[in-house]
């Protein structure tokens, strides 16, 4: 047994460390299209102290470390590009504290969205958090780390904007508290009124530290939810429609999708509008305002509210929407990947046209799924292609199409969301050099030996 293996065994116990071919095979991959790279070890720690010890061990031996949640980013962010230790965080999944009146929760770094949802449903039925549509196993820490979005994103911004405090294990192995919790027992703010240091970690994909605790803001949970779909055949009107909808301030989440199949979705853009209420009256009032806001489009025959059957309603109202994962099997092959740049809502039509063009060029099945971020401040536009994992040629065509999406996204002012290594390189190249210099300074100071998820946010 190697010294490293022995040390890791001492830290987490023999059952929770592996350098066996089975784990190395599995943790070398994610469900997306990035090439695999094997770790040397996989560990599943239980405590922050264990993580500190692992980080110190890695530091002494200059071994790379890659923290991992559910590994569902699809863009290879947890593939250990230079080997080393993958830390599977999911054994650390306690819900530590809920402050009901201050509406926040503190969870461990491996707690999943599904688990928190279930816990709140049962114990705090008047509270909710912003649930993304990634599978329920997706962890909260990883989701805020990649600036994920969720059901409350139209109202409150990126899920990472809802962070109210962090506990981070630095590359040195020290624990660092970020936000109000650094000097108060209360976790109500990730920064203000202090300098907001959360930016040293959020969006860094673990390249500057490992999140071991997250405080997340919770929001009022109304007793009822409903969904309507406004359809239009004029993609150029989508930004106007979104502007009117967001102006009402009556909407929970807004998603836009367009896809060629099934036939009911052909030819149209679908603006899915979620709303909530504590009473029928409240819900009806909101609905009336929402319909009213779009009345001019209806009168002009430019769009209308389609009939949403019970089954479709149930599918849409699920949190997370399991149907999103089902897109992976459209080609009976267990895979999809998307590029989801963040950009202005006014780029919507261009993006859909590009997507249709690429799908046709590479003969691929596609889906466009956009989520409004803030009151129309920007959106995530997902250029999504499904593929058959047993068809290397199709996988290659998706890779090529996604490369073209990356080029296009930059041209139209987009910023990559959870970028692949290649997209990170493109972003760095295009970025204001002084911004990149600042990022480099941060990385060099926090992680001088470059052991933290190496390859990410660095120039090869």
């Amino acid at each position, binding site marked *: 047994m190697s010294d490293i293996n022995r040390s890791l065994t001492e830290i987490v116990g023999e*059952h929770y460390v592996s350098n*066996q071919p*089975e784990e190395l*095979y599995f943790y070398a991959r994610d469900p997306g299209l990035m090439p695999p790279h094997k770790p040397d070890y996989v560990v599943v720690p239980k405590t922050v102290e264990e993580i500190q010890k692992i980080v110190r061990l890695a530091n002494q031996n200059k071994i790379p470390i890659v923290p991992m949640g559910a590994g569902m980013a699809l863009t290879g962010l947890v593939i250990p590009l230079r080997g080393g230790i993958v830390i599977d965080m999911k054994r650390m999944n306690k819900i530590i504290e809920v402050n009901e009146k201050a509406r926040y929760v503190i969870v461990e770094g491996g707690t999943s969205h599904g*688990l928190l949802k279930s816990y709140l449903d049962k114990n705090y039925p008047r509270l909710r958090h912003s649930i993304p549509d990634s599978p329920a196993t997706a962890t909260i820490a990883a989701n805020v780390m990649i600036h994920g979005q969720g059901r409350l994103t139209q109202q409150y911004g990126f899920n990472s904007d809802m962070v109210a405090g962090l506990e981070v294990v630095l590359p040195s192995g020290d624990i660092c508290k970020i936000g109000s919790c650094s000097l108060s027992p209360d976790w109500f703010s990730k920064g203000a009124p202090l300098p907001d240091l959360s930016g040293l970690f959020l969006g860094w994909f673990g390249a500057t530290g490992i999140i071991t605790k997250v405080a997340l803001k919770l929001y009022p949970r109304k007793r009822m939810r409903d969904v309507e779909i406004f359809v239009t055949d004029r993609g150029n009107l989508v930004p106007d429609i979104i502007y009117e909808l967001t102006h009402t301030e009556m909407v929970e989440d807004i998603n836009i999708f367009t896809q060629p199949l099934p036939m009911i979705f052909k030819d149209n853009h679908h603006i899915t509008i979620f709303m909530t209420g504590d009473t029928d009256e409240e819900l009806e009032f909101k609905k009336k305002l929402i319909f009213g806001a779009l009345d001019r489009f209806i009168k002009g025959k430019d769009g209308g509210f389609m009939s949403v059957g019970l089954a479709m309603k149930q599918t849409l109202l699920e949190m997370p929407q*399991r149907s999103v994962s*089902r897109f*992976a099997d459209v080609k009976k092959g267990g895979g999809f990947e998307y590029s989801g740049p963040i950009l202005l809502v006014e780029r919507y039509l261009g993006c859909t046209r590009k997507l249709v063009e690429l799908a046709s060029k590479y003969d691929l099945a596609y889906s466009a799924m956009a989520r409004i971020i803030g009151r129309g401040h920007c959106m995530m536009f997902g250029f999504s292609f499904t593929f058959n994992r047993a068809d290397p040629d199709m996988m290659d065509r998706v890779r090529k199409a996604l490369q073209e999406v990356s080029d296009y996204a930059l041209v139209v002012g987009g910023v990559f969301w959870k970028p692949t290594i290649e997209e990170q390189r493109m972003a760095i190249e295009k970025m204001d050099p002084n911004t990149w210099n600042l990022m480099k300074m941060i990385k060099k100071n926090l992680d001088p030996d470059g052991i933290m998820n190496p390859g990410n946010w660095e120039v090869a």
Partner: protein
Amino acid sequence: MKYEEIIHRCFRCGYCKLTGDYVDFNCPSYRKFRFETYAPGGRMWLIRAWLNDEIQNSERFQEILFSCATCANCVENCVFTFSDDLVNIFIAAREEMVNKGVIPSVVRDYLKNIYVHGNPYKEPANERGTWADGTSIETYDGQEYLFYIGCVGSYDERGQKIARAVGNLLMKAGVSFGILGSREGCDGNEVRALGEAGLFQLLAEQNIALFKELRAKEIITLDPHAFNALRQDYPGLGGEFEVYHYTQILAPLIQSQMMPLKEYRARITYHDPCYLGRHNGVYEVPRKILSSIPGVELVEMDQNRENAFCCGGGGGNFFTDILGGGEDSPNRIRVRQALDTGASVLAVSCPQCAKMLEDAIKVEEMEHRLEVMDIAEIVTRALS
């Protein structure tokens, strides 16, 4: 390999390892081992890698495959259209390994014992009916029902008690039934789950031939595992019988006041056996029996019915114990969940669950706070 055309379709999204309401991880082997490889998604990806020669059939690979409790939580929660076949796929992979002869020694021993002795305990066949000694239960000879016991109820001490409890209740209720005694053979459910398809077919055909010879039409099973084999697999081999779990016979008798029950004051939580619940959809019948008992307060664990957490004994693990050991072994997790409800009785309807959970209570040192009782034992107490 069977199902090879499906293997690559897993997206490893992980819904399979959670309950339907996401309250917790619900895959027994994942709960114990905590590497993704021990979850259904891990198995799917590794089976594919193995078929593609990217990994070998190692001891660890065997542990990963044979630690599956075939509890079907993944079948219940996988979001894809092939979800129904997940357990079948893992069994098919085990079949490949059995055919190549590279399997864990505990699995080999189990299969060998069934082959040689007809039971996993290496006990003589003529002692299969000794559990009924001292009762007035008759040998089957054209009665209305054939009462089929299975290996655990026949030989295991705990199982025998439950078999007697059920047998005596059926007697008391005046049900016309008989047992096979030493003529009974292993039902083969675990043999099939462990990947020995050939031996399973042999056992099933022998049983079917015997049932037919005796002109048995309706069969009551003690063990949900046998219930599953007889109900789901025997028809495909020519064995069409009316098959019941014993709770399905008791419930109407109790509800129609044919067996008047006295008060039994207890807070009881019920553990769904996977082969009665998820595999065969029987969730309410056992609960109806319990709630018919005056004085019983039935409380639910968070993980119940479709979301029930397996005791860790399914898929042959009762005999191979690959899932055993450590505080995160499924049976220990399950009894802690039961204790959390504040119940003093953990009700079961499966001899394998009974033993798994009773063992866990001892290790967890909960003997004075929680008692495992089969539903038949609870009803017996309420009758006296």
